[in-house]
């Protein structure tokens, strides 16, 4: 309870800065401009970049990460964060692969796909419950969960491989998932497109989407408006887990061996968060959009692709990405500061 509003600077009118400056939607421009700039620069700088083959390859490779990032965007907007998506992604791939190896045939493939996605859903639900009803900060909760999941991954994978090495599922009953190309575009790209549109529309035009923004923007106000904030947050975690499961399955079909390297999980989590943040979704919740994350992830992918095409030492990729994240987040903080 505050003593009284008048005696606090909080009571100050929320205006500041010149009106003309305020009308420009700085935050909307944040990702679009650099995205287009790099896209045009690469098209001019490298003839190989703007070819159906190269763009198709980039999209195919990014489909898994785009699916995860789109769902993780909802988690962030609702005021949470999920550091376990990379681990979940690997875990579900291993579950899927193990079942395919063990059961075999079309049944194995179908069961593997379902089990992989379900495992993702369960992990997501757990993350949600732990970080809401059990009141453990989502950062810590999902960090801890990712260690647990990585351990569980190794436990499961023992059943799916012979001796040392990785689980390999190079069977046509399963690999069609990655190799089919309806209308000349890979199936993973199509799946990603559908998921992105569905999640984007959910956020933009549904009651649930509004609740996600409200839960992250002002949880107490949302609660007093009658919104079950915990349920909303758990649902976002469940979506992220399911998306990680789907992505794990898709990438397993693409490669076709289950990765079993903690660094891959960590890199996926980091890249997803980087893409979300570079896209302009606030890490503090309440703001953001799926299309932003798509641009953010593709921006990073394009940058990496450009480095390869232009034969720049990959050493600089990480440095460049890190600096871009700092600029993006700094810009976010600056635009917030200007508004208040």
């Amino acid at each position, binding site marked *: 309870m505050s003593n*009284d509003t008048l005696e*606090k600077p909080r009571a100050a009118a929320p205006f500041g800065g010149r009106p003309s400056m305020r009308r420009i939607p700085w935050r909307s421009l944040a990702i679009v401009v650099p995205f287009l700039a790099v896209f045009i620069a690469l098209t001019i700088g490298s003839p190989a970049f703007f070819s159906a083959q190269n763009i198709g390859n980039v999209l195919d490779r990014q489909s898994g990460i785009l699916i995860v990032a789109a769902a993780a965007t909802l988690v962030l907007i609702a005021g949470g964060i999920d550091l376990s998506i990379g681990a979940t992604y690997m875990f579900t791939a291993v579950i899927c692969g193990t079942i395919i190896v063990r059961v075999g045939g079309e049944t194995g493939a179908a069961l593997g796909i379902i089990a992989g996605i379900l495992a993702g859903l369960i992990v997501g639900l757990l993350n949600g419950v732990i970080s809401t009803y059990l009141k453990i900060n989502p950062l810590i909760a999902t960090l801890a969960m990712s260690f647990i999941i990585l351990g569980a991954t190794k436990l499961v994978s023992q059943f799916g491989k012979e001796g040392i090495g990785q689980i390999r599922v190079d069977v046509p009953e399963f690999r069609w998932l990655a190799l089919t190309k309806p209308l000349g575009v890979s199936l993973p790209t199509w799946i990603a497109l559908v998921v992105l549109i569905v999640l984007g529309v959910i956020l933009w035009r549904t009651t649930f989407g509004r609740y996600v923004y409200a839960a992250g923007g002002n949880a107490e*106000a949302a*609660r007093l408006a009658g919104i079950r904030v915990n349920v909303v947050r758990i649902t976002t975690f469940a979506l992220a887990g399911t998306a990680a499961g789907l992505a794990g399955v898709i990438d397993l079909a693409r490669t076709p061996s289950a990765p079993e390297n903690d660094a891959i999980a960590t890199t996926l989590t980091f890249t997803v968060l980087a893409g979300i943040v570079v896209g302009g979704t606030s890490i503090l919740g309440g703001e953001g959009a799926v299309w932003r994350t798509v641009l953010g992830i593709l921006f990073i992918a394009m940058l990496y692709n450009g480095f390869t095409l232009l034969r720049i030492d990959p050493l600089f990729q990480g440095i460049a990405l890190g600096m871009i994240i700092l600029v993006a987040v700094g810009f976010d903080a600056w635009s917030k500061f200007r508004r208040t």
Partner: protein
Amino acid sequence: MPHTAAAVAPQLLVELRGAGKSFGGVPVLTGIDLRLEPGSVHALVGENGAGKSTLSKIISGVYTIESGRLLIDGEEASFSSPREALDRGIATIAQELALVPELTVAENVFLGREPRTLGFINRRKLRRDYLAIAESTGFELDPDATVGGMRTADQQKVEIMRALARGASLIIMDEPTAALSAHDTVLLHGVVRQLAASGRTVVLISHFLSEVLDLADTITILRDGRLIRTAPASEETDSSLIEGMLGRSLGSVFPDKPDVVSQGEVVLRVTDLVAPGVYGVSFDVRAGEIVGLAGLVGAGRSEIAHAIFGSVAIAAGTVEIEGVETSGSIPGALKSGIFLIPESRKEQGLVLGRPIRDNVTLSNMGQIATGGWVSAGVERRASRSLLDRVTVAGDDRRNVSALSGGNQQKVLFGRALQRSRKLLIADEPTRGVDVGSRRAIYDLIVEQAANGIGVLVISSDVEEVIGLAHRVLVVRGGTIVGEFAGRAMTEENIITAAFADPIMNGSE
């Protein structure tokens, strides 16, 4: 040096000349002339929002003055932080104590200024210095006890000793006895007198008028950011202080109250309600009736509202709407027809980063969405019609943070109007709202009552409560201590009931 500081303190004369301060263009203090004599207890009294805290924060370096001058020992001073004020010998003992609970009494007293030898804390000297200070105050506290487990009164003593250890010559005490028992209050009064006797200045902010009259040498009355008068305590009485704090009525800023059918149906019935901060509250609100909940900040008014609304758990008692017990959850309360406009619209009411449109429809999305799908046209029309009813003009796709305080409050009223309600609770509906919007909000409240809705208005502004309500309940210490209606509903009656004597309160 700490142990000399405790004996006879260097005297410090603090003066304000024409001091003014405003927040976001709203003046909260204007033309304050004040002289704080060393060796005296100077009390600041006024209603909530009169400017007492702002004034004390200017002296203690939290705020800087915008106009006028701050003089220390006759020289103009300007503090850019509380730290600088502290270095000049000005310390504040705030309502929320700032101690490190894990450390001991002696460590807290010397926090940040521990006697050191070669970088290590010299425990023996720490103890010796502590005992010197403790002796000068007469406090008997174990220097090695951990502060976290101590009673509030004892923690307050630690704070006072810390101020003395830092050589404070002027000590600001903000509601020092609000959390104390009767016995500890008497002890603290002794300490205050002793501090003044040793040549220090004590600035006392208190809601308890008897305490003020008893302790202070000089009393300054503030009202609406202006200094009404400064006079010796011996020339003031309870009623002269109340009169000064309230001032003259500003005329009719309130709409006519709608007639209530005295036999009207009971909309809300609260029976023996116990919840956090609420200790056994029973009352009724009839259809079309406006009931005011008056009392001081922290008396338990908002807590009662939240218990009714289901946003905190009820420990005992019942809340009934038209005879049906509520389910004790917010969605349940909304379903049964209760709507709460919370106390802090920025922290509890609005999602500031979202458009006005989203905010006005937030608690009743079902009306603009079918099967979870928001229909753009229905949403636009619903938002526009609600905003028209509460007179908020302009593009509703703007962020709600772009609106003035008054219009933000109207957006929350718009939310309330979206569905037919049975009980509307408005907690501090005009806090931080400009005069123009104020009348519009009063009209909305009265309109609701005229439509047969029971209204519960919570306000720290006694004038507002009287101007709006048919009946006023006064809350103190989480219970209802008075009920006034008709002619008995006067500012004097309400204020007298709200300002309880702490000693009487403690012995109850």
